[in-house]
């Protein structure tokens, strides 16, 4: 089932085209990483999907309901955490969560229980009676996540949830998001590739208001995998490297070889054939190796490749 569906979404601010016919679907239960450089249209998309902004054209559905001008139809089904969550500084986190619960029309007993549960989940139990005005950025972000989860949303929108945090704060927030897997669909925008690599199972890449690609993370990595091997030899094998590389170049399953010091990078035509032949060749030559691995691309490699291609167009 589809949790988020976007069809030909366009948004124009004056002469600037923020979204240019964006189409996308996110399956229910996915932790979707919406990746793109700054100004790509990530926040605009989330603001439209949550009803905070209006699309110039195009349509969108969240949790099976069409998103309209001010998002009333979807308000009960979503949670939202903006990039810099804002609170009433005079409130305590317990009071803020209680206020959110009242807005959702939740009964007093349920509100109290849910607030207690979320404060524990966000690690804010000890700060429950302190005013939010004195909270650190990390604490605010965790409270922001707690308030976004209060109504047990079907779809949770997170706009750059960890971008402004220090490494410890980022780890806390990403752990929090990771624990949400299976509880709801997470639609998370970010420009931090490592965050996507860590928590997202599906990735969408956006640039200049257009979707470049969207796929499960593993499928994307496989699709953009470079058929390459990397090996590092012992110092005593350095002399034999040049002759070995010349021999290897003549093999029909090899595309190219490059050597940097003791590290050899072999790009091949067929990974499966290379897996057998390369090791055999190394053994026959008598090379002493320290490291041997199939090169695995990162989300960063895929992102840079795709965004780079877009920029060249």
């Amino acid at each position, binding site marked *: 089932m589809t949790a988020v569906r976007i069809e030909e979404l366009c948004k124009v601010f004056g002469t600037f085209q923020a979204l240019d016919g964006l189409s996308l679907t996110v399956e229910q239960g996915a932790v979707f990483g919406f990746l793109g450089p700054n100004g790509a249209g990530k926040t605009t998309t989330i*603001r439209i999907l949550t009803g*905070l902004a*209006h699309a110039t054209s195009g349509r969108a559905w969240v949790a099976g309901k069409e998103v309209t001008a*001010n998002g009333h139809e979807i*308000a009960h089904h979503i949670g939202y955490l903006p990039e810099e969550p804002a609170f009433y500084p005079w409130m305590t986190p317990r009071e803020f969560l209680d206020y959110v619960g009242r807005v959702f029309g939740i009964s007093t007993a349920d509100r109290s229980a849910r607030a207690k549960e979320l404060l524990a989940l966000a690690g804010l139990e000890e700060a429950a009676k302190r005013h939010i005005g004195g909270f650190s950025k990390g604490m605010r972000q965790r409270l922001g996540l707690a308030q976004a989860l209060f109504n047990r949303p079907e779809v949770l929108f997170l706009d750059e949830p960890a971008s402004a945090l220090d490494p410890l704060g980022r780890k806390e927030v990403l752990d929090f998001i990771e624990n949400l897997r299976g509880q709801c669909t997470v639609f998370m925008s970010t420009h931090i590739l490592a965050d996507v690599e860590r928590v997202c199972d599906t990735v969408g890449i956006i640039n200049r208001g257009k979707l470049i690609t969207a796929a499960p993370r593993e499928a994307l990595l496989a699709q953009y995998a470079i058929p390459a091997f990397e090996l590092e030899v012992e110092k005593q094998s350095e002399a034999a490297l040049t002759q070995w590389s010349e021999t290897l170049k003549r093999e029909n399953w090899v595309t190219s070889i490059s050597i940097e010091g003791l590290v050899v990078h072999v790009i091949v035509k067929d990974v499966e054939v290379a897996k057998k032949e390369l090791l055999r060749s190394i053994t026959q030559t008598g090379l002493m190796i320290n490291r041997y691995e199939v090169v695995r691309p990162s989300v960063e490699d895929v992102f840079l490749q795709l965004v780079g291609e877009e920029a060249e167009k």
Partner: protein
Amino acid sequence: MNLFTAFRKEWLESLRSYRLLIVVVVLAFFGITSPLLAKITPQIVTAIAPEGEALAQIIPTPTVQAAIQQYMKNMGQFCLILAVLLSMGAIAQEKDKGTAAMMLVKPLPRGSFLGAKFLGLAAVFAIAIVVAGIGSYYYTGLLFEFMDILDWLGMNLLLFVYALVIVAITLFCSTITKSQAAAAGISMGIIATGWIVGAIRGLGKYLPGELNTWGQRLMQGDTTISWIALGLSIGLIVISLLAAWLVFKRQEL
């Protein structure tokens, strides 16, 4: 239901931010000191002016009407200032800080959000005017004479409606801008335009400022009623709130 929830938050904010306390203290101070000032002004002038004795001869003896006039002048001015100061950031600040976006993606209708702001400010001014009115009534009674309580109530009710006009206009200005200063500036511009129009002969009696004059007339036993000014004031409140709601409903946050 959500209007009540939003109003509850506004009310709590008025208490926690000392907004209610400040308005009550300021209006009570000017309410209570008005009869006192009316009473002792001639004595002060006599004491400090070089030709005090001569001046004392020409200054009329203070009366209860002078005390009422002083009260309405002070209360009118400070209600206006406080109404602009308190309302200018009501919507603009929440939009600017991002709290409006945080709350309005939830099932909190924008009309309730706006309505609660107005009701919250109305409650603050109602309480402050009641406290100031009681204090001033008591002091005026002690220093001059006790007045007709119903007329006094009527006068303060008209003052309250006048304050609500300013609150509603400033709330509208706060809705159409994202800056408190801009909201205050536009609001003062609208109010100043009202003063200029009011200065045109014969037009002033139809404008909200007439409510304060009507209140003073009540205390003098003059039963002339300014229905048009009252109708226009209520109309301005309704139109300002309606316009604010229509703008806010379509606004991107």
